[in-house]
């Protein structure tokens, strides 16, 4: 069908057509991955039952940036009024501001229809974590800007507002992923918010550790980061254990790009903690630990997206999970 030859006025006519006859590979890439062997499980030729997430790299990148922004917003509020930790508080305020500015840009980059980004704030829909998140991101962005401008003199409203918004921004992404039909994310929906929250604390500390800090500041950052890293590690262990319940879910988490990234995240996190625990005191140690934590946190978010894609591709993951739930 050539859109140039016909006048289109129907329901779908507003769609733009880039290639009237796209090559088949672009439209249905999935069947190529279907093995032609006989399957014992009942499904429809092994074809995907649900859709894969369409999100590109900028979304997990945003998950990371948002986490740092949220963690720093909280820390900045906690540091308020501490004279000797002024510089650290200023760093935190700057990070919170930068994160809430870069974050929406990354999100917008993923939208197929960039011009319509403002529609995000057209309604507030409590049933949609994406909507709640957009509002809290916008609100925290404003608050973070205010507190950056006001600096030490920021008032109670700005301080607590930024902290509260920061907590939401750091954690809502976990709720967002869990609140989907994707079997892997759905199965982990109670762990994901904890994972994102603790990883946000770890990532914040990771970034701060890479900055020049004095002894006092270092201590604060280290303490905040350790709680985050321990929480992150605990959540990752809990996730791997819960995966064992339905073998297909575990396989989706382990296989392919997602599995590699997950392993990388684990390795980076653990070595970050180990370096941190080395009984030497040096800025280099601190920076290495911070860098490892950062790498781990970034890998973790990409691993979650990739594993979600793998889980969506295999129909048996969805089917077996639902069947086992029905039996329960």
């Amino acid at each position, binding site marked *: 069908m050539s*859109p140039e030859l016909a006048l289109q006025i129907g329901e*779908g006519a507003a*769609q733009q057509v880039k290639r009237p006859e796209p090559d088949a590979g672009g439209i249905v890439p999935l069947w190529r991955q279907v093995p032609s062997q006989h399957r014992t499980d009942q499904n*429809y030729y092994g*074809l995907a039952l649900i859709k894969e997430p369409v999100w590109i790299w900028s979304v997990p990148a945003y998950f990371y940036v948002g986490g740092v922004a949220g963690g720093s917003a909280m820390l900045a509020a906690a540091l308020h009024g501490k004279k000797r930790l002024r510089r650290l508080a200023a760093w935190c305020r700057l990070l919170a501001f930068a994160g809430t500015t870069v974050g929406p840009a990354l999100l917008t980059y993923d939208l197929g229809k960039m011009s319509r980004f403002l529609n995000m704030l*057209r309604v507030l829909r409590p049933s949609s974590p994406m909507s709640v998140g957009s509002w809290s991101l916008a609100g925290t962005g404003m608050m973070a800007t205010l507190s950056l401008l006001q600096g030490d003199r920021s008032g109670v409203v700005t301080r607590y507002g930024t902290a509260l918004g920061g907590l939401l921004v750091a954690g809502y992404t976990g709720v967002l992923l869990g609140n989907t039909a994707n079997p892997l994310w759905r199965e982990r*929906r109670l762990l994901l918010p904890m994972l994102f929250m603790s990883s946000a604390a770890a990532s914040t500390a990771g970034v701060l550790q890479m900055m020049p800090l004095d002894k006092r500041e270092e201590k*604060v950052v280290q303490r905040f980061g350790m709680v985050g890293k321990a929480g992150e590690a605990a959540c990752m262990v809990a996730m791997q254990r819960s995966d064992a319940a339905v073998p297909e879910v575990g396989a989706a988490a382990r296989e392919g790009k997602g599995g590699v990234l997950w392993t990388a995240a684990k390795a980076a996190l653990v070595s970050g903690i180990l370096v941190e625990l080395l009984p030497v005191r040096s800025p280099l140690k601190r920076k290495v630990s911070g860098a490892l934590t950062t790498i781990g946190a970034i890998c973790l978010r990409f691993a979650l997206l990739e594993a*979600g894609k793998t889980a969506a591709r295999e*129909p048996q993951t969805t089917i077996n999970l639902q069947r086992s739930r029905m039996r329960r």
Partner: protein
Amino acid sequence: MTTPATGFFTDTSVCIGCKACEVACKQWNQLPADGDFFSGRSYDNTIHLEATTWRHVAFIERQQRLSGQSTSRPFSWLLMSDVCKHCERAGCLEACPTGAIVRTEFDTVYVQPDVCNGCGYCVVCCPFGVINRREDDGRAWKCTLCYDRQKEGIEPACAKTCPTDSITFGKLDDLKEIALARLQELHRRGVTEAWLYGMGGRDQPGTEGLHAFFLLLDRPEAYNLPPDPYVPTKGVAGAWGVMALAAAGMAAAALAAAHGRGGDRK
């Protein structure tokens, strides 16, 4: 005056796999072609519902007889015209942050193309894998249950064209009666495997019932349908609760880090 809820009842036992519904839908809604593509799987080259394919006929070849049927070899075809289910509680609708997805006066689920900003959240929240984002267009698209035709009082293009009336369009209450009568008739004739998928909230609590429901002759997964779909939003309160706890934890960690020994006391 309220308009009664409308929907589809798709009786797969009479579907002959002619694909007229697919073509009629493409024609009426002026959806672009998906290109030349050979799947190598049964006769199904459409594969799946897509952003540009709002009706899809599934072809299932089975080395198995339908009860009440006699064939020289154990063999039967199952055919099914799939479509957006227009769920009573729709995952896509509850997830959409822009309010682009609305419930129409016919109780169907409709995506407003001028509001959708392509965030892609509905894509992961549809338990049936129906709605998708178009790469070249950037917005999410799916069956509208021919909203434009219904406004004029005419039935959707697929139902209109279906030569065997496998796709029946009408008021939901009427459809349920038709479906139950058909089910009884089939059972009377010995086709005992026939059953109704998603007709009401009792059969499918996860979605509280579908406005496009099906008479099937096998388990749902044979047709690429989920056995127990649920609207993701159902369990979201628990996740928010856990998040609140985690948030309290992070706040405590931040305060402890800032006020603890070695830090600065006011």
